[in-house]
């Protein structure tokens, strides 16, 4: 059994490495093909920087070398563990990512848990009440959410909860003008609620609709009919039969949603002026900061891949029937 787990992980690891290399190459090629000139993007349309200085900048950041050479240099240094310097931030790429990723991570985990829980509960509710008013309301809610862009929901939330009702602050992750030592946990929580809520809303709909589908399938099975015939209340049916059967696909789905979560963060952070990785992605792409962009691409790939891997593993842990066949 252990040996099999070993080969499973080894295979997954090889897959990850090849995927990483492929994604790096593609990102690099795309950046090369884009019309963005890093020096111009760095300087902006300033008339105060002459041709001579532009050449110096290109030289300083190694931008005057042919693309192939730059890629090979970047690649060999990253294998040695050196992620390079971000041109925009003038700091080591890992430092920038580390800082930004931490604040994004809190946001993402809150949103992830919220969307998972709310989606799951709503899904079960809709599933057992299939066709009834509650189901129709929940479905309508989900369909509306699924077809709404995240940034729009964010703006709507700001308008309602921050602007009109004044319950939450408009933006940022810390209170304005307050020294770090005076910032309380409550302050931090009140700043994260709105962005986290916005981010979770999208995931909720997805998981809710899937769970609902699964629940309604289960509700039609013979063993539920039998349970009903035995006189079990719907509460007990849910507890005894439905949750067990539904939790597996729900958990998988929840771990697979890492990629959407990551994509959603980019928008939410923009709308809420929240300092996370999302904003760094946009900046590095638009301004041709290759080392930073590549760094973020690698980190996000590992993040999403880890999500998928966990889902795969959980499948096997929760449902022993799958565990018998460890092939991938």
């Amino acid at each position, binding site marked *: 059994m252990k040996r099999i787990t070993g080969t499973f992980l080894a295979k997954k690891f090889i897959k990850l490495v090849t995927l990483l290399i492929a994604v790096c190459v593609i990102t690099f090629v795309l950046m090369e093909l884009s019309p963005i000139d890093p020096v111009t993007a760095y300087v902006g349309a*300033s008339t105060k920087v002459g041709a001579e200085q532009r050449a110096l*900048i290109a030289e300083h950041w190694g931008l005057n070398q042919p693309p192939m050479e730059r890629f090979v240099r970047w690649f060999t240094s990253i294998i040695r563990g050196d992620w390079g310097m971000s041109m925009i931030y003038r700091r080591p790429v890992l430092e920038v990512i580390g800082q930004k990723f931490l604040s994004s991570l809190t946001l993402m985990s809150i949103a992830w848990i919220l969307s998972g829980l709310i989606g799951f509960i709503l899904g079960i509710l809709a599933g057992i009440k299939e066709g009834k008013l509650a189901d129709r309301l929940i479905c309508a809610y989900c369909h509306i959410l699924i077809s709404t862009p995240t940034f729009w929901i964010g703006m709507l939330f700001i308008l309602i909860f921050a602007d009109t009702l*004044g319950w939450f602050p408009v933006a940022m992750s810390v209170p304005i003008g307050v020294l770090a030592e005076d910032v309380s946990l409550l302050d931090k929580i009140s700043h994260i609620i709105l962005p986290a809520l916005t981010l979770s809303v999208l995931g909720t709909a997805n998981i809710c609709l899937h769970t609902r589908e699964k629940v309604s399938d289960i509700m039609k099975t013979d063993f539920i009919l039998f349970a009903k015939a035995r006189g079990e209340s719907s509460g007990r049916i849910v507890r005894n039969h439905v949750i067990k059967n539904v939790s597996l696909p729900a958990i998988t789905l929840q771990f697979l949603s890492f990629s959407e979560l990551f994509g959603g963060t980019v928008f939410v952070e923009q709308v809420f002026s929240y300092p996370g990785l999302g904003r760094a992605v946009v900046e590095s792409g638009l301004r041709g900061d290759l080392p930073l962009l590549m760094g973020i691409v690698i980190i996000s790939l590992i993040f999403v891949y880890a999500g998928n891997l966990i889902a795969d593993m959980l499948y096997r842990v929760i449902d022993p029937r799958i565990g018998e066949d460890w092939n991938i």
Partner: protein
Amino acid sequence: MKKRKITAFLLILALAVSCFAGCGKASGETAREERKAKDELIVAIGEEPETGFDSTTGSHGSITKVFFSTLFQRDKELGWINDLAEGYQVSPDKLTWTVTIRGDALFTDGTPVKAEDVAYTYQTAKDSGSDIDLTMIDSIKAVNDTTVEFKLTRPYSPFIERLAYLGIVPKHAHDDTFKDHPIGSGPYKFVQWDKGQQVIAVANDDYYGTKPNIKKLTMVFLDTDTAFEAVKDGTIDVAQINGSLAGQAVKGAKVADIPSIECYGVCFPMVANEGKLAQDGTVMGNNVTSDLSIRKALNTAVDREKIVSGVLNGYGSVSTTGLEKMPWLNPDAVLDPAEYGNVEAAKQILAEGGWSDTDKDGIVEKNGQKAEFKLLYTEGVYRQEMALEFIKVASEIGIKVQLEKRTWDTILPDIHKEAVFYGFGSGDPSELFNLYYGGCAGGPVAWDNSGVYNNPAVNACIDKALNATDEAEAIPYWKELQKYTSAKGDAPYCWLANANHVYLIADGFSFGEPVVQPHGGRIFDNVTEWSWGN
């Protein structure tokens, strides 16, 4: 029983939510009153320097002036006054600039500012490969504690501009962590930086100049719309906005606009398209705009006042030279209000130039060439609206201008063969070199003289101006060249308007008397004058 549980739960939830509501709207205005009483201010102005607050690794725009002192700065009339410097001297061969600095300035860590720090700052900035262009400097030397010598590679009269934007850093404390904890000798002392969000500063009690009225200054980095909302609900006090938001009335706040030299205009390709290539291989020239009567007709037809009132909502001023309010403006180059916004006169110019609509399709022709060209513009406030007004007027006089949106990267292939919509206004006379110098055309920086204008008289004036000892000696030459570059001369541009910098400010707040703002702003130059008026 169950129902009571639910009610209890809801009550708890409601309580919890109202807890967070503490920082909500009602308290926003009281918070502002508290700030007023304590001379504290929260502003959303300008962009965050992502590289941190190390002035040697990037020109940070106006925010430099909060923490750092520069050697010189522009005064209210756009002349030069000393900041950290006490004066300068230029050697007879114009290659050595000797700057003396005051002896009483202190960094916020208590150490005196010495010439050595100045030399170190300039050397570091020069070597940093950043957007601070110091390529005209050959070497820098601290002669004694208060004298610095800059040796230049060539005479360069606008050199003082380079001495006005670089914040001086202390040599002894300039290490890897400096950008996160800057030490300067400016009016404010650095306290805290929450990356991506805000920076907090307090008044520097040891500042050698006038002490600032505002004792605690918080600068937040928000996008314009969010900042606007934040002023509305009292969270912040001042926000930079744009003219289109200025129309909304806001309780407890008003709009303040500051004159600027943020000038918008259309650059025309000046030569015919003969297949000549620029250095980067793109084609130069346009057969329509190379005709003087086309350029003059457009300059005559466009109603700048309409642009100021319609597009800028009145927050701006007419520009026909791109140099209004500058000390080096040649008044003879300015168009009189009677000389523009006149469609009939424009048609007359076209007719005299040989352009007429023979096939009755609404577009004039000359020798089989239809009067049509593209106008390329980029994303930015006001740009699209102004460009639309421009093409509308052009169509009234029978010139078909096709509007196309590009980015600064995708504009490059056509930059020399189509008209381009620009925003200029660095507030530096040497910008005239970038705009009109023949030698720049088709060179390594594509938007320097992208219209390929080449008038030997203009080139000679620019050479003389750059070769002068200093700005004062150069100004007559800068003025002279405008004889040719104005709309009355060769009309290489059609200048439209200056957009004022617009701010939403809380009632009671005053900027004092800010200087005329260049592109990118100079708003923090007089930060010590800002006040709550109490």
